[in-house]
């Protein structure tokens, strides 16, 4: 064990930090938190920001050079991520492309697909959305019914997706479709890439409990998709889908956000007076804060342990199964503690003039619960830990 960074890594950290400090102010995105409602101008600014990060060489550090990455080790990637959180850098609009479909294509895509899609993901030229869930298939994803029939060298897609985040502005969708309705449910699914401008696609926004338009219903009416957009083999999309889910769950379990939330909670408690003293000096609230900080730190080292496993080329084992469960629940616990700390101010809507910090916490409190659900609920995560991790017998 050695928690020191090499002088080169330290220099890299300073370089990233300086670059962020210099460039964040002109992004025009200061204070745009995890707001999911992207109006056109915000969207353009966010794409411009991602391009800038990419041109500076700080995006997708561990991707191969051929696809616009930097072929660096995962340590630098984690340093860059840490600095983005520390400097409160604007969110990356192409996150689902960078963290989910990109790594999946690197592992499963053919050369043509990699060359065609990966550079545009990084350059924010194509924003991606995930077409997995359907009205009848949420937790039981493999029961999905959106149908793709093969006609010549095309798939013809009919059906519906739901809760599709970002579909209202996405250019591309990675989508699960049923290509063999007669096979057992996990064996008749294929993973295809769909151009969102294809004729026959209708996107109907849904308003989330936050009041934002974050996700959508997506309808497919005889949508033609070239066969070359199939990733992996026909009817073997479930494995590909799971690769993406693994990346998604790691992204959702990432502790950089968690640390940022804790720091803001601590500042909130220090600045909130209760019975004549800061809330952070209240013995009960101190215990709660300390417990949260301890859990945040435990996750930090838990993730570092997995980072080391990946550098050593080892399977992280049982540990990796818990990231999504623990990370998203911890974020929600942090936000819940902040809501409690705020007292009556927690009751104000985001756009009320008296809202604290422009409504940051009430928004996070809701958003973080959405992430406990999205990407596979906590219940489903526990099923997976028990059945795949601990090898307890299946319930069915």
């Amino acid at each position: 064990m050695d928690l020191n960074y090499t002088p080169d890594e330290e220099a890299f950290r300073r370089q990233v930090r300086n670059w962020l400090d210099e460039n964040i102010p002109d992004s025009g995105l200061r204070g745009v938190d995890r707001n999911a409602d992207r109006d056109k101008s915000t969207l353009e600014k966010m794409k411009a920001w991602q391009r800038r990060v990419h041109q500076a060489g700080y995006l997708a550090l561990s991707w191969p050079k051929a696809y616009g990455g930097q072929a660096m080790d995962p340590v630098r990637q984690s340093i860059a991520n840490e600095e983005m959180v520390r400097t409160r850098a604007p969110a990356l609009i192409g996150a689902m492309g960078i963290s989910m479909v990109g790594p999946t294509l690197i592992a499963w895509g053919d050369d043509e697909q990699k060359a065609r899609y990966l550079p545009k993901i990084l350059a924010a030229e194509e924003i991606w959305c995930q077409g997995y869930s359907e009205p009848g298939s949420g937790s039981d994803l493999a029961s999905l019914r959106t149908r793709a029939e093969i006609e010549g060298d095309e798939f013809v897609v009919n059906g519906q997706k739901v809760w599709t985040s970002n579909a209202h502005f996405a250019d591309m969708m990675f989508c699960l479709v049923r290509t063999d309705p007669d096979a057992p449910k996990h064996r008749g699914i294929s993973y295809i890439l769909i151009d969102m401008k294809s004729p026959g696609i209708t996107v109907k926004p849904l308003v989330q409990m936050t009041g934002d338009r974050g996700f959508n219903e997506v309808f497919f009416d005889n949508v033609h998709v070239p066969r070359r957009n199939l990733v992996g083999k026909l009817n073997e999309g479930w494995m590909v889908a799971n690769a993406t889910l693994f990346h998604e769950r790691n992204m959702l379990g990432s502790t950089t956000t968690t640390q940022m939330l804790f720091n803001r909670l601590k500042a909130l408690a220090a600045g909130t007076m209760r019975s004549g003293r800061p809330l952070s000096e209240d013995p009960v609230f101190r215990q709660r804060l300390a417990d949260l900080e301890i859990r945040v730190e435990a996750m930090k080292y838990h993730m570092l342990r997995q980072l080391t496993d990946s550098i050593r080329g080892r399977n992280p084992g049982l540990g990796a199964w818990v990231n999504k469960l623990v990370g998203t629940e911890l974020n929600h616990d942090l936000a819940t503690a902040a809501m409690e700390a705020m007292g009556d101010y927690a009751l104000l809507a985001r756009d009320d003039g008296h809202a604290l910090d422009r409504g940051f916490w009430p928004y996070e409190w809701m958003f973080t619960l959405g992430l406990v659900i999205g990407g596979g609920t906590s219940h489903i995560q526990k099923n997976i830990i028990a059945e795949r991790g601990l090898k307890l017998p299946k319930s069915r």
Partner: protein
Amino acid sequence: MDFGLTEEQEQLRESARHFLAGECPAAKMREIAADAAGFSPELERKIAQLGWPGLIVPEQFGGAGLGMLDMAVLLEECGYAAMPGPFLFSAAIAAYALAAGGGEELKTRWLRPLAAGAAAGALAMVEANDGLAPSDFATAARTAPSGAVINGVKMFVPYAQSASFFVVAARTGAGGREAGLFVVPADAPGVKVRPLKALDLTRRFAIVEFDGVLAPPESQLQGAADLYERVLGAGAIAIAADSIGGAQRVLDMAVEYAKVREQFGKPIGSFQAIKHAAAEIVADLEPARALTWYAAYAFDALPREAARAVAMAKARACDVYSRAADKAVLMHGGIGFTWDHDIHFWFKRSRMNESLFGAPPFHRERVAALGGY
């Protein structure tokens, strides 16, 4: 940046797990627990042959000169086995205290035999009021012409009955506000041991009275207030590591049982209530293990972070162990509530671990204070 065990540490872990499965299986643990002494001379001898007592003792005093992370790796396995005996208290804590604060003579006299397994040290810290701050101690070391004279009564002294020497915390200094640490031979005149009956049968403890015990100047450990904190820290890490291993064991026991016990015509492990309870233990345990390794590493390598890291690990590992033990007993149903089933040994040990060297609320308060809130 490397957050993993070395090959040697992994070997230590593997060989310890293997050794304890053979030499200290649950049946043996129960046998030792049932014996009044609470340790097995035979097991202690074998452990000594493996060099465990001297793991963190400097090489010049016959030890292996390894660090707290190595010790934590080993203690995780001892916790997994619920190994009875003074090992943790002597080899991780008393050894650390002597190595860090003892003069040459003291080290030669006590540390060398400790490393060889020929002597065991015990910590005499808390008193009837159960406080850990030096101001809680009534035991005082008064300056006398030939050194200090110690008077006081210590409680919950682990393995006092079989200890060769005590590391005694006593108030010193002008206002008696500092805790000095003194090494007192167990057979020194004025020392009297009265056993307590422990809930955790894998451990023994006692009341130790120090009645005008003479402590010559060289018996006092050097390093003053800071040393006392560090010794408590060594204890906290040791207990945290034991807790991680214990939590792993109760999880393994419950999972194994859930695969074979059938109700309603199927294994209880196919019921979601059981699955989720097991998954929650994993979700608590894995991050807590990483935190404990970090604390053990920081204890030696990152002096500025160590105090906070240790407090975090102690609070979390003990919370996690107690919760895991609760869930695991429940998962066993009625059989888990019997004396004959083994799981109550871990259940009780989790409770003792929680209390020793500061309970979780104590350490959370330290985290708050050290984090500036």
